[in-house]
């Protein structure tokens, strides 16, 4: 994995993605008194990245919310309109559907429909990801649905470095940003500088350089794709791109890569139909058609609800399925 960014920094250490998120939250809260954190049982830390924050910042700024998703959204949305910079933790991103109207429609429309005159600095955090055997609401990756609805920004990091940098960008952004993280990556370790830095939203990252085929993948699937690329390294030179944010989406980075490789596989753990992968196919039609030597291929979760049990291990894209897809487009 590339270590972009770290080089310029004097000091880095290996920490987990969860700890990187915690650092982002703590640093932004120190930086700006208007930042506060709201979520169900976050003081205890259902997920480790909120654990201990209440000790530093107190109960006023780290708030255990009731079980009331629309209400909790409202706290964040209303406070953001009043000029605060709330961070709302949904625990599982799938729970945010309980406030579907607020999340999908109201948050993204507010600024634009009211004349683009007033910002909405609202960060939402939620975990997602297939493979934990618990099924649908606890696994649902809502980014395909989120980016369909204009006005939201949406990101999903694959490394601790990106997690910290994206979360800081999200909190400093004047728009609603849904920061997703993959449940299976919470304990993944990686280099993170000690210095303050951000990863801007809308800048993709070439996580592995290659020349025969481009693979676009996020979150856990970035790692699955790197595995597939590694397994194929003696046959096919695979470039692996991590969009990091789905909206804004760094189409230029992708087009530059496909200009070189002429082939594209999109790996997407979300439901296949009308999701992010479909959008990238459409963008390739519109902006990259002449670059392609073969049709773009999607490797996604099939169009069925995400099952629990032993099934989700293979219903999601696996390194094997990605490898097969790469071979297919390179035939």
């Amino acid at each position, binding site marked *: 994995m590339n270590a972009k960014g770290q080089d310029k920094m004097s000091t880095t250490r290996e920490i987990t993605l969860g700890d990187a998120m915690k650092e982002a939250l703590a640093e932004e809260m120190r930086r700006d008194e208007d930042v*506060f954190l709201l979520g169900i049982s976050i003081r205890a830390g259902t997920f480790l990245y909120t654990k201990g924050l209440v000790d530093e910042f107190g109960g*006023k700024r780290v708030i255990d919310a*009731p079980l*009331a998703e*629309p*209400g909790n*959204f*409202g*706290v*964040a*949305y*209303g*406070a*953001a*309109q*009043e*000029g*605060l910079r*709330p961070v709302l933790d949904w625990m599982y991103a799938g729970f945010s559907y309980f*406030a579907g*109207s*607020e999340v999908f*429609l*109201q948050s993204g*429309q*507010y*600024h*634009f*429909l*009211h*004349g*683009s*005159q*007033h*910002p*909405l600095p609202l960060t939402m955090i939620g975990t997602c990801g297939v493979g934990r055997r618990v099924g649908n609401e606890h696994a649902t990756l809502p980014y395909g649905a989120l980016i369909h609805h*204009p*006005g939201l*920004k949406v990101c999903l990091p694959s490394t601790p470095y990106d997690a910290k940098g994206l979360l800081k960008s999200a909190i400093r952004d*004047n*728009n609603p940003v849904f920061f997703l993280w993959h449940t299976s990556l919470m304990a993944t370790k990686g280099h993170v500088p000690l210095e303050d830095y951000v990863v801007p939203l809308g800048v993709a990252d070439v996580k592995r350089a290659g020349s025969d085929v481009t693979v676009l993948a996020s979150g856990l699937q970035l790692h699955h794709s790197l595995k597939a690329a590694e397994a194929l390294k003696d046959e096919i030179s695979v470039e692996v791109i991590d969009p990091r944010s789905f909206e804004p989406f760094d189409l230029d980075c992708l087009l530059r890569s496909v200009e070189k490789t002429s082939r594209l596989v999109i790996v997407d753990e979300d439901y296949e139909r009308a999701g992010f992968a479909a959008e990238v196919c459409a963008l390739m039609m519109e902006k990259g058609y002449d670059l392609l030597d073969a049709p773009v291929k999607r490797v996604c979760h099939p169009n069925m609800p995400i099952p629990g049990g032993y099934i989700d291990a293979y219903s999601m894209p696996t390194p094997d399925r990605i490898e097969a897809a790469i071979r297919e487009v390179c035939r």
Partner: protein
Amino acid sequence: MALNGKQKKLLFTNLVRAHALDRMMMRIIRAGKMVGFYHEGGIALAPGVAAGSFLRQDDAMNPHYRAHGLAHMIGKGVDLRTYVAEHMGRVDGCCKGRSSFHVSFPDHHIFGWSGNIGANFPPCIGYGFAARYRGTDQVVMNCSGDGSYQEGRAHEAMLMSANWKLPHIFWCENNGISQSTAASETFPVQDVSRLAATFEIPALIVDGQDLFACGEAALKAIAHARAGKGPFFVELKTYRSQEHNVGGLNNEGAVTRDPKLMQEWRETLDPVALAAAKLIKQRLYTADEIEQIKADAEREADEIELFCEASPKATPSIDELMNGVYAQ
């Protein structure tokens, strides 16, 4: 809390203005010059006027969508020309002609509503939260109809505001009907304010046709919330004496409501007439002065209409619009 003469005059003047503007909105929509819906205020403007007349500019407000918050926002001091221009889709509209009737005035802490009834509740928790977070004494005036309290979002707002003792005023304008469904058909008890008792939120039931009773309730609720004593609930009983929205139905279930009854309500329950009579009796205004207030209000409405007519229709380019999706 008793009203002084000045307060009564303010309320009355605002009510007369609201009434004139509600009539003007009716003229505009009937002339085909309004974009989208209009939900006439009719004889139900007193609660809104009272809700808005004693707030500070920095108090947050969610106006009831009925009469599109006109009554509520008059007291709040927003620029009514841009309000009406927005309803006419003009470039001078407060939201650049994009919001239809979901107007907003962020400088006045009125952040605009969405098309969903009940969507008012969650943001108002946030306004109260922000006041508490910052330690200000701002209050939140959250106005909506009886129907909106059927939504689960109302429960969450009452629960959370009670729990955190937020300065959140639940201002329920109960006209006993939602669209074409009588409250008795969908709401199992008589008074919506019963919901407040569960959470130990103090509540008042007020005659919504009595402008001064509404005003007293507003003063009481605002004082309570401003003093940091937590949420307050005011239920204002009022009437819808016309169709739900202009051009829509005036039904209860499958049955058209009795036009005679509606007419009777308009005649006997007109809050302007009721308040005027009291003011004259209390010698706060003469009949002539009241006529003058009405004439001024008509003129204000006419001037606004002229201003809006002169404002060009907002038809920005798609590029310009796309540049406005995200804030910098």
